[in-house]
């Protein structure tokens, strides 16, 4: 058993304990009605939000994401696809087979593909070119739903876990990488659609909220770092593992836009904007999200 699997099993049993403890705590906690009478000039004092924060911390320690890292690791090393090969020759930017530290240095420009690629886009590329999967098949159902976990999500969670504790260093050396950043910034600020929204409508100012949800300002280093952390993430709402591909997709849904292509250049450029803005911070690894 690899160390990652062992940790995952420990995490799983920890999670079960946490859930039981949380259930007990919930019953014991003051009813909502009483909470509603409390002083409520800011959401920070909202007892529901405070409760959530506490839960978040406990869950973070249990780290359910590691289960998915273990799944992804096994998948990475297994011979699969029409060509029956593993992904161990996949070049994530640091040379064929090098997984350690690759996630925090993507998106980057890949000369072999002639494209900007974020981690998941690159994984899809490797699954297609090395293993013989069809890109259209992988794009059909790219997001977790119920018990369904798409392969690229498990794989990107493994790849991301191999950058845990490392500094975010999304490259801007090449002209293509600088162009991607600038195009990403334009996409971020582009207002259109029936509600005149852009990404910046919600994520362009410090200290704002939608309902009780705090919104990071992605144009700043601190805000971009907050968004970069925790993905791929185990989302407590629905209990599903999601990657940044899903996050971007659901943001565009709420922006009232049409749907962005899965693992498209648009998303790669947006993630370049996000990643470069987050540069210099330590990546804590796959995590947990509301």
């Amino acid at each position, binding site marked *: 058993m690899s160390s990652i699997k062992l940790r995952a099993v420990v995490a799983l049993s920890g999670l079960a304990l946490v859930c039981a403890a949380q259930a007990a705590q919930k019953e014991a906690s003051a009813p909502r009605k009483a909470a*509603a009478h409390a002083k*409520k000039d800011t*959401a920070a*004092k*909202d007892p*529901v*939000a405070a409760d959530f924060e506490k839960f978040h911390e406990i869950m973070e320690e249990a780290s359910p994401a590691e289960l998915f890292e273990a799944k992804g690791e096994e998948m990475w090393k297994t011979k699969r696809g029409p060509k029956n090969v593993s992904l161990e020759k996949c070049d994530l930017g640091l040379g064929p087979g090098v997984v350690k530290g690759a996630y925090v240095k993507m998106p980057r420009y890949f000369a072999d593909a002639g494209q900007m690629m974020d981690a998941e886009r690159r994984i899809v590329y490797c699954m297609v070119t090395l293993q013989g999967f069809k890109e259209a098949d992988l794009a059909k159902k790219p997001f977790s739903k119920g018990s369904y976990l798409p392969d690229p999500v498990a794989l990107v969670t493994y790849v991301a876990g191999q950058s845990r504790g490392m500094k975010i260093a999304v490259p801007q050396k090449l002209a293509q990488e600088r*162009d991607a950043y*600038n*195009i*990403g*910034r*334009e*996409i971020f*600020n*582009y*207002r*259109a*659609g*029936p*509600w*005149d*929204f*852009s990404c910046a*409508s*919600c994520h362009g*100012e410090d200290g*704002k*909220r*939608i*309902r*009780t*949800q705090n919104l990071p300002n992605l144009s700043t280093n601190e805000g971009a770092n907050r968004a970069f952390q925790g993905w791929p993430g185990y989302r407590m709402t629905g209990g599903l593992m999601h990657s940044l591909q899903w996050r971007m997709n659901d943001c*565009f*849904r*709420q922006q*009232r*836009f*049409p*749907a*962005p*292509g899965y693992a*498209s*250049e*648009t*998303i790669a*450029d947006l993630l370049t904007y996000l990643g470069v803005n987050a540069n210099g911070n330590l990546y804590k690894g796959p995590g947990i999200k509301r």
Partner: protein
Amino acid sequence: MKTLQASIFGAAALAIAFTAQAQDYRGQAISMMKRDFHAQGIARMDRLDEDALQQICNLSHNNPPKGIAETLQHDQLATVQYPADGKFLGDWKAGEKIAQDGRGMTWSDKAGQANGGSCYNCHQIGSDTTSFGDIGNSLLHFGKTRGYSADVQKYVYGKIYNAKAYSLCSKMPRFGHSGTLTEQQIKDLVALLLDPNSPVNK
């Protein structure tokens, strides 16, 4: 016609000023999105096309020259369709439900379904919830502090119908103009803010 010409001239001048950079990243971004996106459910591809107002706001980074802003605000105000019966106040209880309801206009929403106003996403309104956003200003005690006159009612109706008529690059959607909310729904929201019996004014 004159205002339309002024708007077009303004947009053209801005476009020239802002695309005179060495690289047209904005143009590349738009082409890329049009290539990479696809229609899903009710969200068709034409949603990626800017209208004249969105274009001015995008080109000017939401800070258009004053003269252009005033002209275009005037154009936006002309789009507001006020109720034929001249009455602005609906039912504040229905308004509260609309304000709480965040559904509508996404690709996962069904065509023909009543939309919500998503008001609490960005505004404090009533006093009995802590779950409100702060992208917009607090509307608590709106009528109490501003009065309940017909002029205020008309202003609130217009503001919800087309927020851009009052502040050109406001973040607030144009709920009437975009067909999100019906006349009756907007009246109900006006009542939520301006009925003296609404909890907003207690």
